[in-house]
């Protein structure tokens, strides 16, 4: 028998049992960090098990959107599920930045389940030092 040691999981189970009926959520939001630097912003999203070609990153009307699908683990024929907590399936997150973006220079990198998007600021949004004459 599997024994759980953590209390919040028990509560999760309760909700899960209710939600995994017909109206189970198929949409989820991966956790993201957004940090702003002088010349760029960096968005880091946790996407364990997501492959490069299962991701769509778009930049439209100043909104950056990360969307995709996490494929569930394919259970072998003789397999039985003892515990299932990984819930992320389809996901989508949109971010609007408070300053102008150089949309052509956005770059993204996926490694170890971490998606890192570098979003450079437009020249007009970068800090400038004004020399005193």
């Amino acid at each position, binding site marked *: *028998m*599997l*024994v759980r*040691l*953590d209390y*919040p*999981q028990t*509560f*999760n189970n309760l*909700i*899960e049992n209710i939600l995994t009926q017909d109206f189970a*959520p198929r949409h*989820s*939001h991966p*956790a*993201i*960090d*957004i*940090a*702003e*630097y002088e010349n760029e*912003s*960096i968005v*880091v999203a*946790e*996407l*364990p*098990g*997501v*492959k490069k070609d299962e991701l769509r990153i778009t930049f439209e009307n100043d909104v950056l959107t990360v969307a995709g699908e996490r494929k569930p*683990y394919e*259970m*072998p024929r*003789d*397999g*039985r*599920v*003892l*515990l*299932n*907590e*990984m*819930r*992320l399936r389809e996901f989508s997150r949109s971010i609007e930045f408070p300053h102008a973006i150089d949309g052509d220079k956005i770059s993204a990198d996926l490694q*170890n*389940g*971490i998606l890192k998007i570098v979003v450079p600021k437009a020249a007009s949004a970068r800090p400038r030092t004004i020399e005193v004459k």
Partner: protein
Amino acid sequence: MSLIRWNPSRDLAAWSSDIFNMQREINRLFDTFVRGGTQADESFGLTYWTPAVDIAERDNEYVVKVDLPGVEKDDVKITLVSGVLTIRGEKKQENESKTGSFHRIERSYGSFQRSFTLPSSVRNDGIDAVYKDGILTITLPKAEEAKPKQIEVRVK
């Protein structure tokens, strides 16, 4: 004892703050669930989180999968002591990300630990752990006596 005029709005205020506290608590638990079992509880001054785990049993082995995006391979320790599988480790915040000004921090950092009692004995020598795409997959082959056996019925 003097009579105090009953003030319904005061009772209502106390009552509604209770409700709001409860709602906040439920929201927190709900968030934990929606984010796949991740939790950083800072109210006790600790940072810990709970990675989501899937466990499957096959005829010959157990397959344990743990969501560990962004965790370094060397920061994870796996132990098996008298049938209890423990996965513990730490997710560190990258140094570079400390210098920026943050608009949003949703990822959890810090230590994690999960323990599971396996339903039957496993072969200690055949355990394998692979880290790929942010998922740790541990394969534990069952001991010979734990594998399913088919008993044939002889007809006399």
